């Protein structure tokens, strides 16, 4: 059974802050490995990296218990890690190996982990919104106190199913939190060209409680999430959390020349001024919780861990071809 987090704790305890920092570093390191795998031509297909957006997944998932559900997107490595999946089996999945979470059948865009409540990444923009809402329907029906978090990019604001789902979630007071990761771009188009009106007005129109938070500040994300999760567990219904954030690299690993849709300067500004890891590290150091050396050690440790995980994934075998016809039906 999930233990409710008390959202009144505005002072986040040290253990939690360190854990969140570690998680963010892990995601960054994971994504750097993914990019390397791509550059080394070891990865099939094109992955969508989460670098720059770490504080969102980490802050949200920190407010969840292991039993709570998440649904994720094509840019889903961060969510998967933050919810507790292991990097080695994740890399294995990204390489299409049998040891991967989905036996290699899902890959980057469909990674899922039943043990940590990850209902799966989704390659259809908005494709998991109704699913997350349905998971919340179950929770309410079964009285099991679970909360369901639906991550999606601001591009999914274009999909009608979001509004259909929010309407039902509010009508039925379902414990679901819609987390909109606004990284300002739908692929290669700025969201202002695809999004009329004010984003927060959309959930509000359906009576869904809506808030906005700085998606580069993991403490702020966690605090908001904890409050909304608590609210949902108390039966007060769905919420919408808009997290403004930024993806550092291309839409996918192959999107290198981006200047036709966004400037290097804009990218640089986010990286130097708004980096969620730097921000969190500075705060930890300023608060006297860790020093720079400890931070560096942590990074080194995590990098080493990721390298080992990659090695495992690279060396572990592909599924046998006979597996292609397995698991079509349960």
């Amino acid at each position, binding site marked *: 059974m999930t233990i409710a987090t008390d959202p009144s704790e505005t002072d986040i305890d040290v253990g939690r802050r360190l854990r969140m920092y570690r998680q963010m570093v892990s995601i960054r390191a994971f994504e750097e490995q993914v990019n390397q795998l791509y550059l080394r031509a070891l990865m099939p297909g094109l992955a969508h990296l989460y670098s720059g957006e770490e504080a969102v997944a980490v802050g949200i998932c920190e407010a969840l218990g292991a039993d709570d*559900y998440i*649904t994720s997107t094509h840019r889903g490595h961060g969510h998967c890690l933050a919810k507790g999946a292991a990097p080695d089996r994740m890399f294995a999945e990204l390489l299409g190996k049998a040891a*991967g*979470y*989905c*036996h*290699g*059948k*899902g890959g980057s865009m*469909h990674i*899922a*982990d*039943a043990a940590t409540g990850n*209902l*799966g990444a*989704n390659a*259809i923009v908005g*494709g*998991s*919104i*109704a*699913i*997350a*809402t*349905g*998971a*919340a*329907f*179950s*929770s309410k*029906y*079964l009285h*099991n106190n*679970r909360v*369901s978090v639906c991550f999606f990019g601001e591009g999914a604001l274009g999909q*009608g*199913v979001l509004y*259909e*789902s929010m*309407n*039902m979630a509010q*009508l*039925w007071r379902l414990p679901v939190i819609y987390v909109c990761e606004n990284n300002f771009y739908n692929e290669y188009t700025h969201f202002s060209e695809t999004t009329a009106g004010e984003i927060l007005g959309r959930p509000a129109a359906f009576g869904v409680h809506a808030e906005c938070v700085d998606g580069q500040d993991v403490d702020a994300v966690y605090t908001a999430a904890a409050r909304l999760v608590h609210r949902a567990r108390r039966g007060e219904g769905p919420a919408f959390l808009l997290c403004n954030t930024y993806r550092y690299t291309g839409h996918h690993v192959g999107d290198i020349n981006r200047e036709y849709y966004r400037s290097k300067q804009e990218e640089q500004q986010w990286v130097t001024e708004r980096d969620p890891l730097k921000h969190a590290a500075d705060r930890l150091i300023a608060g006297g919780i860790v020093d720079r050396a400890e931070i560096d050690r942590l990074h080194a440790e995590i990098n080493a861990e990721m390298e080992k995980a990659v090695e495992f994934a690279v060396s572990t075998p592909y599924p046998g071809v006979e597996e292609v016809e*397995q*698991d*079509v*039906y*349960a």
Partner: protein
Amino acid sequence: MPEVIARELTFGEAIREALAEEMRRDSRVVILGEDVAEAGTPFKVLAGLVQEFGPERVVDTPISEAGFTGIGVGAAMTGLRPVVDIMFGDFITLTMDQMANQAAKVHYMSGGMWKVPMVMRTTLGATRRSAAQHSQSLHAWFCHIPGLKVIMPSTPYDVKGLLKAAIRDDNPVIVFEDKMMYKLKGPVPVEEYTIPIGKADIKRAGEDITIVATSSMVQVALGAAVMLEEIGISAEVVDPRTLWPLDEHTLVESAKKTSRAIVIDEGYARYGTTAELASVIVEGAFFHLDQPVARMGAMHVPIPFSPPLEDATVPTERSVFDVARALCSKR
């Protein structure tokens, strides 16, 4: 069918009874759909269920087919066994992403981690003067998608047993019900039973020609068989009952025996299920066939409103009789 026939139920009553039994047996079974509760659907098929099971289990939804189908998928993944009601089969158009990209693929894409034990009940069939957007039989779309199961019951007995099996199945199963058949009566045992998904039923044994017919076309085929009998042609009527999984063996063996076959389904004639059924028969019985397999479906036009036009679009006892007689006369 068991020996002791206790009573007759309509097709609609058999559906209601199947749902009620499964809901009593398993508290995880819930119904989601438009006007399913107090109204019991426009076809009144669910009348009374909300009174027995309450509005938490028989849930009136907004007119959001994509949304509540997806909610069904998510609920199925997390411990419930939802039965999603799509009033007219024409509205599955709105659910195709949830069904084909999500429900059908979750189990496979997750390497077997997540399951989607959900049922979609919807309708098919024309001749109700409901025009082009309320008369289609679009089951071929679902049959084409691996990961889904598709059920096409043609009698009260079959629909009860198959629907119960569908609810217990751990996969997304779509049940197509012929709107015109809800009042059709037939024997249904009082004792509980289920019918395995994937087994055809020979609705009438015969020697000279095989008529494979689905759903609404089974009664048409049986009527044609009676007419054929009068001119000395013995028709075997085979009802696949479930289009996926498909009981190829029964179809092929029947065709081998009779050496002629017609396939009838109320979906549009082209690129529909008759093509698959005919191909399966040809592949399995080619060297036994005297004639190519004939296919009959809805005329390949949007279903018109005007009664004389609409009536021309669907196979009838007469048109089936004519095709069968022609096939048998070419010896």
